[in-house]
């Protein structure tokens, strides 16, 4: 296997297929469209199915139905399209189906949507936020593993630049520990035996007329607590002796990391920490890092969303300053001045001077 130059959206779709994804359904929307196109073109080659659904509501419904058969299945959209899918996202979480879904977001304004969700009830989705195409290829494959391991949806949070940047990548099937058999999946074979299956989001099972919502929700809650303990991932650089710690995620973090490396090479005491999982959020890592720094800055491309989690992590042990803000092109696809190392450096220098940046 050699490294090939591929566009991010195609590389992620190819990685999904390498991970065993055999069903995809989606509805076109910039900058998610190329992901959908790639699945449409290449899933049939491996005997898979890709459907250009008539709406996002239907796209996620189709993925749900495919997941119920035990297939690895995925859907995706932009944050706008995912807004339409929220009801299904919370139900699929409760039905404990291993959905993987892409958010090729128009910026980072979907942080709340990704980590809190707009769906009903108590539910949590694992959210992976790759920094570049190479990491996206790995995280896409990890997503399918985590989804199956926990029987819980996993979101891959990307954006326009991740989707459209070409990078040299190597895509081969990654090895993960063995998973339990999907004995819960429907295939019709147990009909009439008294043991037929019911994939159900409200905890209803055969021969029970009453549901037990409390017990059901409590069981899910315990699982989500376990995920919080097990799956928080992050990257850090230059924490040692950092006067200020900059927290960023996704594509913006790529600019931040570059600038922090540059500033460190000039002897400026800045550190960097990046949540790779937005949920579970790496509270402990950030909490620990905050003990040894004078202030913590959050640089995100929105009005201040992840900063809530950073504040919860830091819990007052250091001041938390907002250096992020809105930044977009005229089309609203979420590419803007913040995607420039000069702009990022300027923001970080503001932070070092003790100034917040207005979003």
């Amino acid at each position: 296997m050699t490294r090939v130059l591929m566009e991010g959206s195609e590389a992620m779709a190819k990685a999904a297929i390498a991970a065993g994804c055999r069903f995809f359904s989606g509805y076109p929307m910039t900058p998610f469209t190329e992901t959908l196109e790639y699945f449409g073109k290449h899933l049939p080659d491996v005997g898979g199915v890709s459907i250009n659904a008539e709406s996002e509501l239907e796209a996620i419904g189709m993925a749900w139905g495919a997941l119920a058969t035990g297939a690895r299945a995925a859907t995706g959209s932009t944050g706008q399209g995912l807004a339409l899918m929220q009801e299904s996202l919370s139900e699929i979480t409760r039905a404990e189906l291993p959905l993987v879904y892409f958010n090729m977001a128009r910026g980072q304004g979907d942080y709340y949507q990704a980590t809190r969700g707009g769906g009903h009830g108590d539910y949590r989705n694992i959210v992976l936020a790759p920094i570049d195409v190479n990491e996206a290829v790995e995280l896409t494959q990890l997503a399918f593993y985590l989804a199956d391991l926990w029987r819980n949806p996993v979101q891959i949070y990307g954006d326009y630049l991740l989707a459209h940047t070409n990078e040299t990548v190597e895509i081969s099937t990654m090895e993960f520990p063995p998973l339990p058999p999907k004995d819960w999946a429907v295939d019709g074979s147990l009909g009439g035996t008294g043991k037929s299956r019911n994939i159900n989001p409200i905890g209803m099972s055969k021969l029970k007329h009453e549901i037990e919502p409390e017990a059901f929700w409590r069981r899910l809650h315990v699982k989500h607590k376990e995920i919080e303990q097990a799956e928080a991932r992050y990257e850090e650089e230059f924490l040692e002796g950092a006067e200020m710690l900059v927290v960023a995620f996704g594509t913006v973090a790529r600019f931040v990391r570059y600038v922090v490396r540059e500033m460190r090479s000039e002897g400026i005491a800045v550190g960097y920490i990046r949540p790779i999982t937005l949920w579970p959020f790496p509270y402990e890592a950030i909490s620990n890092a905050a003990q040894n720094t004078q202030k913590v800055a959050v640089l995100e491309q929105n009005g201040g969303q992840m900063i809530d989690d950073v504040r919860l992590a830091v819990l007052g042990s250091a001041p938390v300053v907002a250096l992020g803000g809105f930044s977009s092109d005229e089309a609203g696809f979420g590419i803007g001045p913040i995607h420039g190392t000069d702009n990022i450096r300027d923001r970080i220098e503001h932070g070092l001077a003790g100034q917040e940046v207005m979003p």
Partner: protein
Amino acid sequence: MSSGSDILQTDAPPSQPAEKLCAFKPDLLLSEDHHLCPGCGEPIAVRMMLEAIKELECSRRAVGVIGIGCYTALTGIIDTDLVQALHGRAPSVATGTKRMLPNGLVYTLQGDGDMVNEGLQEVIHSAARGENITCILLNNGVFGETGGHMTASTVVGQRTKNTIDGRDAKEHGQPILISEMLAQLSGTAYVARCGVFNASQTVHTKRILRKAFQTQLDGKGFSFVEILTMCPTGWFVPVPEGPDYLENVLGSVHKLGELKCE
């Protein structure tokens, strides 16, 4: 005609030699117990559906995708594999299931509130796509589960909780005749409407369900069965009058028959 003393003992199978023609429940039902209202038509329709699946020897390959309505309570006793969908979304879920399980007999069970209100686009798109699934609509013209509210298939004049003086076309619009709408689409292979308001129509309902399932088994495309069912509770009519009300009030607008058979 007969006096009380003529009442026969019926609390056990007969002691004289006799052939059992029909058991209490169909084989694909786990239990007879359910909490649906007296006089409800839905269990009758579900019995016919399960018998049709059994008769076609599809018990071991059927997967149902179930909507949200009173009939959802029956999912605890339906002995086929099931996927519980959201309100209105069953045809899409069934699409994904069927695509990954092409040899399965994949059916949806939805009510009129589920299918014709919330999920109208789903059933239309799945039909237009010619998706090789069977969608079954239990149409009683009301949201039974919430206590009898108007749906998109409530007929003009029908009393519901929010059209208490009867649905007025000027104020509430006209009902959607979903079978007629779907029959127009070239993606549909079989469309029929039937009802469970008397024994012969109930038998006929099973015949139609068998044809719809056979359409899927033959790979001909989208099949659709609309079954008119009684909801005396939701209609505010005396329970024993349910069948007559269904036949004469709903049935006069949602007319019975095979609309398409390819």
